[in-house]
């Protein structure tokens, strides 16, 4: 497949590893923010072929992992209403809420449907005008424009039965929170390639300018990741700190202005709760006035008070402070068939990837 296979070439990968080995003189910790990077790194076994002094830690860029229990509980409560159809991306099905999950509710007969695109929620709403169709809007800036488009279309077409459970998150504010935390030691950032196709590189400048760390916007194929790591190591060894783009074939400094304008039409920035990281300013969205009627939180629903397992370490794992191996529940009680926290559910969740690939 074009633009994929060429970036999985073995000989070039071996050459890049040698290059990295040549210039690396000191132990460093690089954070790969994005869950899709976590998966790619494990899938190709990249940790095992990097020089030992380069440590990769996984960050909180897994939208499923950072969704608070309360949001899942709300989705579950809605699904139990007779006239509601829940539409969601597959990622959310197994995430445990306080006492249940969407997968369990579906088994109990609730109308919960997996879709591949926000536009399918629109289609289902049109086909079921007698029901309320709720779309679980999770994701980062890569997905937000697609959600905005669905909202704009619904409004244009006068659809009154489509609602959105807004659980979207924004990456740069989370990075600020991490950099401000005393527990986290990061020498450089592997920045999310696809989020950056939308937001460009301006939103990351503070990493270099205020915090003096290098950051490289990186693609997801093995050669992309290796080149991105090489670029970071080079900056660190040369005591430089700038934001660079490795993933030049789809990321431009200005991002995607059309996509950004769609988000802007529908949403404005708002504080948002991240599981494990708490409330982070500007890290989410709220609906603008003219679109508020599609916010599902306007509907009357009784939701159970949120509960998290007291020993679940997802919070610290998400910040890269602890590894899953340090969690008392890991593998003993918490495993993919019985996940206690979202880090074990999401295929990008750090705990899941440790369980499967370690």
């Amino acid at each position, binding site marked *: *497949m074009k633009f*994929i296979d060429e970036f*999985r*070439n*073995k000989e070039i*990968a*071996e050459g890049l590893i040698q290059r990295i080995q040549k210039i690396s003189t000191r132990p460093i910790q690089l954070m790969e923010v994005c*869950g*899709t990077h976590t998966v790619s790194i*494990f*899938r*190709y*076994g*990249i*940790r*095992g*072929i990097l020089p030992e002094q380069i440590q990769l830690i996984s960050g909180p860029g*897994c*939208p*499923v992992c950072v969704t608070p229990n309360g949001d899942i509980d709300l989705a579950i409560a809605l699904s139990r209403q007779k006239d509601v159809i829940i539409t969601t*991306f*597959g*990622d959310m*099905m*197994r995430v445990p809420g306080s006492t249940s999950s969407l997968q369990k509710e579906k088994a109990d007969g609730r109308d919960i449907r*997996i879709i*591949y695109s926000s536009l399918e929620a629109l289609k289902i709403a049109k086909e079921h005008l007698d029901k309320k169709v709720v779309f679980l809007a999770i*994701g980062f800036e890569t*997905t937000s424009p697609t959600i905005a488009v669905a909202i704009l279309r619904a409004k244009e077409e006068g659809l009154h039965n489509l609602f959105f459970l807004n659980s979207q998150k924004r990456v740069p504010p989370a990075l600020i929170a991490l950099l401000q935390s005393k527990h986290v030691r990061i020498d450089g950032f592997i920045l999310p390639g696809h989020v950056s196709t939308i937001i460009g590189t301006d939103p990351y400048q503070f990493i270099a300018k205020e915090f003096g760390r290098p950051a490289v916007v990186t693609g997801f194929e*093995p*050669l992309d990741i290796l080149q991105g790591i090489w670029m970071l190591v080079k900056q660190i060894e040369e005591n430089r700190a700038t934001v660079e783009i490795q993933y030049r074939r789809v990321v431009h400094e200005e991002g995607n202005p059309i996509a950004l304008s769609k988000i802007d039409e529908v949403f404005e920035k708002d504080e948002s709760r991240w599981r494990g990281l708490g409330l982070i300013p500007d890290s989410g969205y709220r609906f603008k006035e003219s679109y508020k009627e599609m916010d599902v939180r306007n509907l009357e629903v009784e939701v159970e008070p949120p509960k998290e397992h007291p020993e679940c370490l997802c919070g610290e794992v998400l910040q890269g402070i602890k590894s899953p191996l340090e969690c008392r529940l890991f593998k003993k009680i918490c*495993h*993919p*068939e019985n996940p206690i926290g979202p880090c074990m559910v*999401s*295929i*990008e969740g750090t705990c899941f990837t440790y*369980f*499967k*690939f*370690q």
Partner: protein
Amino acid sequence: MSGEKILLAHGSGGKLSHDLIKQIFLPQLANPILEPLDDSAEIMNREGHLAFTTDSYVVNPIFFPGGDIGKLAVCGTVNDLSMIGATPSYLSLSLIVEEGFSIDLLKQIVSSIHEVAEQAGVNIVTGDTKVVEHGAADQLFINTAGIGWIRSGVNLSGVNAKTGDKILLSGHLGDHEMAVLSQREGFKFQSELKSDCAPLNDLVRKMLNACPSIRCMRDPTRGGLATTLNEIASMSNVGIVIEEEKVPVRESVRGISELLGLDPLYLANEGKLIAICPPNEEEHLLDVMRDHPLGRDAEIIGKVTEENRKRVILHTLIGGHRILDMLTGGQYPRIC
């Protein structure tokens, strides 16, 4: 009977049941053992070990590119018998039909069953049909059981793998599951992706003729290649190493997998097998497989090791490695 629907009475054992047998099943599946239509089939005993297997089929949708639930039912049981080194001989065929099911569609499915049974050289010798109320079953469920005598001189089992053995795969992974998924979801292709559903007994026969010392054969159905290899590694208490670049996957299957976030190593296949053979026999076995229409794309994909017992390790495309675990909880398509 054409154009009509199945009624509850078709399953009650009375006149309509007999009509169903006489007009739909017997014309297509007739053979001397079935024809008496006694409560049980009478089979002449033979020397040797008898293999016995059963499976139920609940696939949705019941028709998909490359096959249907009937073809699947016969192939699945023929293949289970073949994997243990048995020559598949006799099958039972039980149907649970939802009231209102189209008789024309039923005829089509029985026709499929007939066609593939003939191709595989097996006979359906006993059967049953029950009808349940509308809503109590999803259109049609099938159960087949099968027997066959195990070839002498052959000992195939998941406990037999030994250090140094080589692992062969007969062809592309994921065709069946993707064909079914694409039918269900309405996915489109440049050239149609078909299920690989096929009876493997002829291929197995030729492989065992060429290499009677094959240790083990398995067909990677639900859970895919990764799950099957884990079963063997566990049963034989050995390690397994697979080379990612050797594992064949069609481009279209890779395309959907990448797009939906699914892993071909965990997708179901219905016309593929893996074989574990002693060292130095793999090249010859590979030639024999590639000589057969169902093994044209066969590859030697890995080997059995002393280290990492009970684990399956994948050497990745770029020279790294990762552990291939069993499938847990099914794959959902993802956006992240």
